[in-house]
Structure formats: structure tokens, C-alpha cells
């Protein structure tokens, strides 16, 4: 009897492990099948959620069948999962995290008839493209909102890791805030995690205690939003609209909109027109956006954003155009010059007005 019970218990324990990562299929009539690999749960309300919205948009627009797999770690396991998706008929694979890069590259060589797309990396093969978005453009706009809102002229920025992607966002945000409020300072705290709601919140509390009255974030949870809500401050979210998480603090957020790119590329693959590429889409391509402003956004913010957005869209303005000064006050980008894409991808210095260290 005990043995039977023990076996049952063990079986339950093991089976529940898989419960969370259950695979779901949605029946569609088309012969095209597209597979997605996600690094987190769809319910993260952030990065993976945004990619999943893109998948749903793709289904709706093209009527193709999609498969997905959540919470796939950035290890050998991604190879197995990609092979599984291909076994189930996937002709196109979207792998949506940086750490998948080398594994996707390897599998892409084994399956020349399948087309691969890898998000946020830098490697391509004949049948593997990489893609990412110029979120810094939207961050610049969100900086305008924060710059107009702050009264203490101190904005707190909770940031995950000191890597170019995050530094680029902080710089763009700061430049946006300074464009409407030259006295503003952006104070950065590193959490060294993408995902830890409590720690992220504590980091924001530290910034608020230090005198900041607006909080921005480059994190995947809404922890910093909660801190602002509790302390009666205001906040800028990230990844998706975070209005519901902090209705008394949230003003807007730079957000991802992958749908249009997914539709365009899958259409190309279906027509046999796919060419390998490295894509870095911005507001012009509608890959990144600024979420709708809430009532808490300061007066005049909408007009200022619209003006800045128009000048970015028509190319008359670039976020990283000179003159740009670093923290020490030295001129780094001269007037009339603009950072190239390559320079932006390797960006490792803070602009003047950022308080914080890059270690």
C-alpha cells in the first residue's frame, strides 16, 4: 500500500513539473505552421507577453497555424524544443531571447528548408535572420513625459544589467527628459536581475527615498511601478501597458509591437521571397511605440511627444545626434554628427545628467 502511494506521489510531483509548460495548439486551416520559443511565461506581463501578442496578431492577419513553447531556458534545451516544433510541422521558427542565438544558428544549418528568426542577437545564416527594435526612440519620448512631470528634477531609473541595450535606453530617456527640462537628473540603480519583483521594488524605493519623484524602469516585472504607487510618486513602465498594475502612478511606457514584422516576414516566406537579414525596426516600422498617455501625464506632454515623434519619423531628428556630452562633461559626439547603428549597439557610456556608474 505504501509503495503504491509513494509511486503515486512521485508521479504527481513529476507530472506537475510539466503542467506549467504545457504546449497548446490552435487549429487553423492553412498549411503554414509557425513556431515560437519564449524565454518566460506568457503571463510575465512583459517581454514574452509582448511577443505572444505578436503571435496572436500573426494568426489573425494571415490565418496561419502557430505553435509555441513557454519558459524555455537559454541552454541546449532550446535545440530540443526547436526540433520538436519542426517535427510538428513548423516551417518558420521565431526564437525570442538573446541567449538562444548559438543554438538557433546550429539548428538552422541542420534544417535548411526551415526559416529561422532570432530576436536581439547579431548572428545570421542563409536561413536565419536576426531582428530587434529601436526601443530607444520610444524611451526618448517617455523621457519627455518624465521630464515634464518631475518637480524635484530627480528621476529614478531601475535598470537590470549594465549592457549596451540598457545603457542606450537610459541615455535616450535622459536626453528626452533634458529636451524639455535641462536641469533634470536621472539616477540609475542596477538590480543585476531581469526578473525579481521584490528586489526591483526595493531598488525603486531606494531611489524614491533619495528624492526622485518619477520612476522609470528597464526590468521585466511591475515591481518599480508598485513602489511609485505606494509612495505617491509617478512612473513610466516598460514592455507593455502597465496601467492596471499601478493606476495611481503609471503615466505611459515604451512598448513593443512585433505583430507587423511577424506578418511581413511570414508572408515573405510563404511567397518564397525570404532573404536573410539583420532587422532593427523603430517607430517608422511601428515595431516600437509609446503606450497611450494616462490622465496622470503632465499638461503639454502629448503635444511635446507628437512634435518629437514627427521629427524622428521624418528623419529630421535623431535621438543620438550631436552635440552629446558624457558624464564628465566631455564632448563625445560633435554637432552635426550622429551615432551609427554600430556605435549604438556598443554604447557603453552615460550622457551628462545621468547619475550612476557603469561597472
Amino acid at each position, binding site marked *: 500500500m505504501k509503495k503504491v502511494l509513494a509511486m503515486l*506521489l512521485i508521479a504527481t510531483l513529476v507530472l506537475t513539473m510539466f503542467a*506549467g509548460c504545457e504546449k497548446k495548439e490552435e487549429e487553423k486551416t492553412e498549411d503554414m505552421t509557425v513556431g515560437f520559443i519564449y524565454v518566460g511565461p506568457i503571463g510575465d*506581463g512583459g517581454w514574452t507577453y509582448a511577443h505572444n501578442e505578436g503571435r496572436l496578431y500573426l494568426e489573425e492577419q494571415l490565418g496561419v497555424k502557430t505553435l509555441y513553447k513557454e519558459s524555455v531556458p537559454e541552454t541546449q534545451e532550446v535545440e530540443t524544443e526547436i526540433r520538436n516544433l519542426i517535427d510538428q510541422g513548423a516551417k518558420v521558427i521565431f526564437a525570442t531571447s538573446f541567449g538562444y542565438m548559438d543554438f538557433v544558428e546550429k539548428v538552422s544549418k541542420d534544417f535548411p528548408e526551415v526559416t529561422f528568426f532570432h530576436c536581439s542577437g547579431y548572428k545570421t545564416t542563409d536561413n536565419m535572420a536576426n531582428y530587434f527594435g529601436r526601443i530607444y526612440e520610444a524611451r526618448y519620448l517617455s523621457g519627455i513625459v518624465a521630464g515634464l512631470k518631475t518637480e524635484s528634477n530627480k528621476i529614478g531609473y531601475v535598470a537590470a544589467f549594465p549592457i549596451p541595450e540598457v545603457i542606450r535606453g537610459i541615455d535616450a530617456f535622459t536626453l528626452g527628459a533634458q529636451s524639455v527640462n535641462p536641469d533634470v537628473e536621472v539616477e540609475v540603480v542596477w538590480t543585476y536581475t531581469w526578473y525579481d519583483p521584490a528586489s526591483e521594488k526595493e531598488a525603486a524605493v531606494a531611489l524614491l527615498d533619495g528624492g526622485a519623484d518619477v520612476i522609470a524602469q528597464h526590468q521585466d516585472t511591475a515591481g518599480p511601478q508598485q513602489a511609485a504607487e505606494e509612495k505617491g510618486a509617478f512612473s513610466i513602465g516598460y514592455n507593455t501597458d502597465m496601467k492596471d498594475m499601478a493606476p495611481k502612478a503609471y503615466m505611459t511606457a515604451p512598448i513593443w509591437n512585433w505583430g507587423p514584422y511577424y506578418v511581413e516576414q511570414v508572408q515573405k516566406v510563404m511567397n518564397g521571397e525570404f532573404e536573410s537579414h539583420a532587422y532593427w525596426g523603430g517607430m517608422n516600422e511601428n515595431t516600437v511605440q509609446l503606450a497611450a498617455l494616462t490622465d496622470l501625464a503632465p499638461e503639454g506632454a502629448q503635444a511635446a511627444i507628437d512634435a518629437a515623434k514627427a521629427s524622428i519619423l521624418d528623419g529630421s531628428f535623431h535621438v543620438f545626434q550631436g552635440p552629446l556630452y558624457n558624464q564628465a562633461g566631455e564632448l563625445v559626439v560633435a554637432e552635426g554628427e550622429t551615432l551609427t547603428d554600430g556605435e549604438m549597439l556598443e554604447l557603453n557610456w552615460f550622457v551628462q545628467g545621468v547619475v550612476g556608474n557603469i561597472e
Partner: protein
Amino acid sequence: MTSFLISVVIAGTPLLFATLGEIITEKSGHLNLGVEGMMLVGAVAGFGFGIITGNPIVAILGAMVAGALTALIYGFLTITLRANQVVSGLALTIFGTGFSSYIGTNFIGKKMPDNIIEFYKPIEIPLLSKIPFIGQIFFNQDIFVYLGYLTVIALGIYLYKTNIGMNLRAIGENPSAADGAGIRVSWYKYVHILIGGALCGLGGAYLSVVEVPAWQDNITAGRGWIAIALVIFSKWNPYKAIFAAYFFGGLSIAGFRLQHLSIPQSLLDALPYLFTIVVLVISSMKKSQENAPPKGLSVPYFREER
């Protein structure tokens, strides 16, 4: 400084509950490495009961029951079936992580009702909060924090001043002697493993109900493992546990306020573990009985081999 110390107490509270839970579990001679899993189940249950019933008390009771039920699995495996405690505990963590994630998909993006958030707002205790400096730090906090103080005192009295507590410690040290003295060993073990699970569940619920307050997958982010280290750090003593938990809580957030001093974050992250090793070395040099782990820890008890 005051605002930092207020945050320290908050950051230390989930660690405190989990540490107390593991202390009482280990005092019964069982090493339960499933703390992280029990915390997560407690966290998801606390949040779920909170948004479904809208009642702050039901939320924490639900978290405690859920934590205890999770511990019951471990208890059955290790007491009745005498399975390996380390493996069972690790399995419990895997189970708790997956189970909470599965249940939690229903709660993502949902907001805690305002009345619950209101209920767990800081409450000033008259007189005590007027004590200069420490008053605002320790006596202007939420109910959970006060519950933490009370649990420490209650557990201290229970373990060191009552007969039942002495019986429990006897079981942890030498279960066959305790059995010979007429103590119902298995019964004691079950009860205390369940209490331990309930306290771990409470620690998890503090994160999802009060501190964050939202459900997000894997909300504990490794705090359960730190709690296991804290048990050793506090030498199985509930009074020392409160200092240990606040100390570690403080170290975990000190980095956010010291970054301008150019102290490498990696060093700050390593400090808690360095301190644990130092404490272990010092206490092993003293060779005092008081500081040693329960002798029967992680040894299955077979009555027939008495």
C-alpha cells in the same frame, strides 16, 4: 538612514518567516530543502485567496494552509515512507515552483483589492513608535512585521520554556531516546513539519500580498534558499533568526543605496554567504552544544532499529 532601515525590516520579513519555519522543521530532525517551493505555494495561495475573497485574514490563513499542505507531502515521504530527506525536499521545490506557476496563470495582471492593501498599510503603535530612532523603524510597520516579532517570541518560549518544546528538541537530538521516554515521535514530527510549512507559506504570502503586491511567476526569486542558510547562520535559535533575517535583508538591498560609492555589487551579493561561512567557522571552534545542529537531523527514524 531611517528610511533605509525601514526597508531593511520589510526586506527581512519574508526571510524571517521562512527561517523560523525551517528552524522548527529542523528541530524535529528533518531537513526540508523545499522551503522555496512552500513559499511559492503560499505566495500564490495568499494572492489567490486575497483577490477571490477580498478578505485580508482569509488570504494569510489560506497561505498558511497551502504551505502546510505542501509540507504534508514532504512529511509523508520522509516520516512515513522514510524517503531520503534531501531528495524529497528538492522534489518539493520543483513541485512548488511548477504548481504555483500553473495556478498563478489565472492571477497574472490582477490587482490586489484596495481594502487588503489598506489593511496591510503600516500602522503606528502608540508609545512604542515614539521611541527615538528605533520607534519609527520597528513600530511603524505593517501587521505582518508585528506578526513576525510575535512569532519569534512565541517560538522562543515554545522551544525553550515548555515541555512540548523540550520534547520536540529531544526528538531532533535523539528520536529513539525520546520514543523510549514515551513521546509520540511521528506525531510530533508531522505537526512540526506542518507548522514549518505554514510559516514558509506565510513568508511567501508576505511577498505576493503585501510587499509586491501582485502575482508574478517565481516571485520568491531564491529567498527560500537564503532562508536555509539563515537557519545555520542563526544556529537554530529563533531569537538569533530575527537578527539574521534583518541582516541578510539589509545586505540584499544595501547595494541599491551604495552604488554611488563604487562598491562592486558582486561583492555585496557575496557578503551574506561569506558571513555564513565565518559564523560556521566560529561556532565550530567554540564546540558548544548549544550552537550545534540537532543530532538526528536528516537521519530517518526506524522504530524497529531502536
